[in-house]
């Protein structure tokens, strides 16, 4: 057979799943490892049966229900990642809480308004470019993409007033009002758009950066 490591791993999943199946057939409730193995094995076999990606993914949520497993197991089986061999090759399937959820997570709405931090001051941003521009929590707003039109002076030393990890996406042609808060710490900005590279509060820093911004064509500078 000249089995590859991946195929040997497939057999490990099968062996554990088979143990789980036999235990289930004896009326036993499944443990964490048994549940993960059985779900993984069944999903891999659904792909082998020729189902498409969506059908295989959906199958992952239909194999075990809370009544099939030991009391704590639905909570212990959070995320399962596995790869199944489809007609177009291996594809990753990620199942989220597959014992309690009945179907895959949806991607969710695109236009949700972020939870703004308290004390944020409003700022208008207009995307004059033809690509979406995403802003994150700790980027120096003064130095965001030059095709974003905003009051650059008002954005000096400010970052987006959102929790870390939140992204605010401004579509081409769109204008959005966001909220910004001042940086903390020693207030030294390096990197970002390359307009500052030093202390924000040094004398003349803002004027020098504004001059640089104008020179480089930053909208609103």
């Amino acid at each position, binding site marked *: 057979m000249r089995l590859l490591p991946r195929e040997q*791993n497939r057999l490990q999943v099968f062996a*554990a799943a088979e143990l789980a199946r036999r235990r289930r057939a004896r009326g036993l409730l499944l*443990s964490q490892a048994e549940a993960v193995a059985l779900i*993984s094995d069944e999903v891999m076999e659904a792909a082998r049966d020729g189902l498409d990606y969506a059908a295989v993914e959906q199958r992952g949520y239909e194999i075990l229900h809370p009544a099939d497993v030991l009391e704590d197991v639905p909570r212990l089986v959070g995320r399962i990642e596995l790869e199944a061999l489809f007609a177009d090759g291996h594809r990753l399937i990620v199942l989220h809480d597959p014992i309690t959820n009945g179907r895959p997570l949806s991607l969710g709405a695109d236009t949700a308004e972020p939870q703004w931090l308290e004390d944020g001051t409003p700022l208008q941003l207009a995307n004059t470019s033809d690509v979406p521009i995403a802003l*994150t929590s700790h980027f120096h707003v003064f130095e965001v993409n030059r095709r974003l039109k905003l009051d650059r002076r008002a954005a000096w030393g400010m970052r987006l007033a959102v929790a870390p990890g939140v992204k605010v996406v401004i579509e081409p042609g769109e204008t959005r009002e966001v909220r910004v808060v001042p940086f903390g710490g*020693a207030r030294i*900005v*390096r990197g970002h758009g390359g307009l500052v590279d030093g202390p924000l509060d040094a004398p003349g820093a803002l004027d020098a950066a504004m001059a640089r911004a104008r020179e480089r064509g930053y909208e609103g500078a």
Partner: protein
Amino acid sequence: MPDAAAVRLGDSDLWVAPESDDVSGPDEIIAGWGNTMRDGLGVRAERAGVDVAVVGGLVLDPVLGVRATSIGISDGRIVCLGRAGNPDTMDGIGVVLDTGTAVYDARGLVVTPGGIDCHVHLLSPQVCDAALAAGLTTLVTQDFGPVWNLGTNPSEAEAMMWAAFDAIPVNVAMLVRASSALPGPVEHALARGGAGLKIHEDVGAGPEQIRCALDIADRHDVQLAIHTDGLNEALSLEDTYAAFAGRTVHAYHIEGAGGGHAPNLLELAGRDRVLTSSTTPTVPFGAGAEAEHLAMTAAVHVLEPGARVGDAEILRHRVRGWTMAAESMLHDLGVIHMLSSDSQGMGRIGEVVRRAFQCADAIKAQDGAEPGPADNERVLRYLAKVTINPAITHGLAADVGSLEVGKLADLVLWAPELFAVRPELILKAGMPAWGSSGDGDGSTMMAEPVTVGPQFAAIGSAPVQTSLAFLAGASLEAALPTRRRRARVQCCRDLTAADMVRNTRTGTVSVDAAAREVHLDGERMRARPVERLAFSGSYLLG
């Protein structure tokens, strides 16, 4: 009811709640696309940060307590704890990240010090794999394979083991056999790679061996671990205690099924200068423990009950369910200080950490919760038994046993729901030594089957860089075939129960064989057999 911020450990009823939070808030460090761990944002654009940071975890530490915090590591040592980030743009940063800092994302994970097993028989190298997979990073060892030694003498064996350890990412302190009425052989072995002493009744635990060993221990500032005279052949318990002459010892498997004065070894617990440990199979007390120990003792200790006169009789004296039932209570009260494995020699090394928390959960179920926050006190008390207390007892605490600044960055990251059973990652000196990972051909790191196995700090000569050789002062400069850094064993001799972190209770333990009862200061010690064992059947295939 546990408070809102409390985290449940595994499938147990143990909850931990952070006593401080340096993680959450508007400047939280998050790795990944579009998140805060970027140059000039959450990461300082110039050096001056730490080499490695473990960011955003819930730290459980027997000394530091329960804290949501980040850990900074440089040159393999913990150098700071606090809020992680970029002090150029963020307030209150205690762990400076820079563009060179490697970050382990511990958000949502529990972080503990690497466990220490202070009773390891290395009857096979497979013991080390099981140890690492269970979150143990320091081993106090005896033996060098399937050989009847109960120490690591002779010096050829010590040299061979140091050569072998250079491929294994654990810190090691080897005990040498001190069952010797004369000091010469013991001194010789201690000076050639030893870190402490072991007396075992199977090779002699009489008064002369005890006195001789303690003289050597005092001379070299090392610990004596003792398995006492279970036959009461040369000594009864009080004679053994008298032979200690007020000098500190570490009494192994204090309940006695693992060996030692029958039936009353447990009476050594609670005495000021007897540091005590249990081994895994009797903790927490379970319905099958007594039956198992009859089989286990005979199998391990070369008995032929039924075929050889007296074997069944000594076996029955040694294996007592009623002292096992007392042992778990004495753990909960902090009278017994440590938990260890007795690996392949009557115990399971993969269960050291797990058994500690199983006992905590079982006694909570029996006796109820202690004052909060959450179960922090109880959880930390049991954590101390498998981390800092064995480190202190064996003179390793300057380097390992807690996450205090200055110590080697040996730590374990656990998903809380898999706590004590399946570790996410074991770091040795800040480097990944063992952990969970999936199919190597996968598009992600965690494609099933996810297994717990070696990481890069376990490969090639990496263990040399990340692991310590603990040595007695007498062998610190010895010519040994190890390239790892050496650390001196120290501060072993002046220890008392008061030095055992969170486990300091002393008292009089009395064992009444006629009534089959154990009392601590007059109070009956009896745990019910565990009804629902946490961290076990909800997870394990077998």
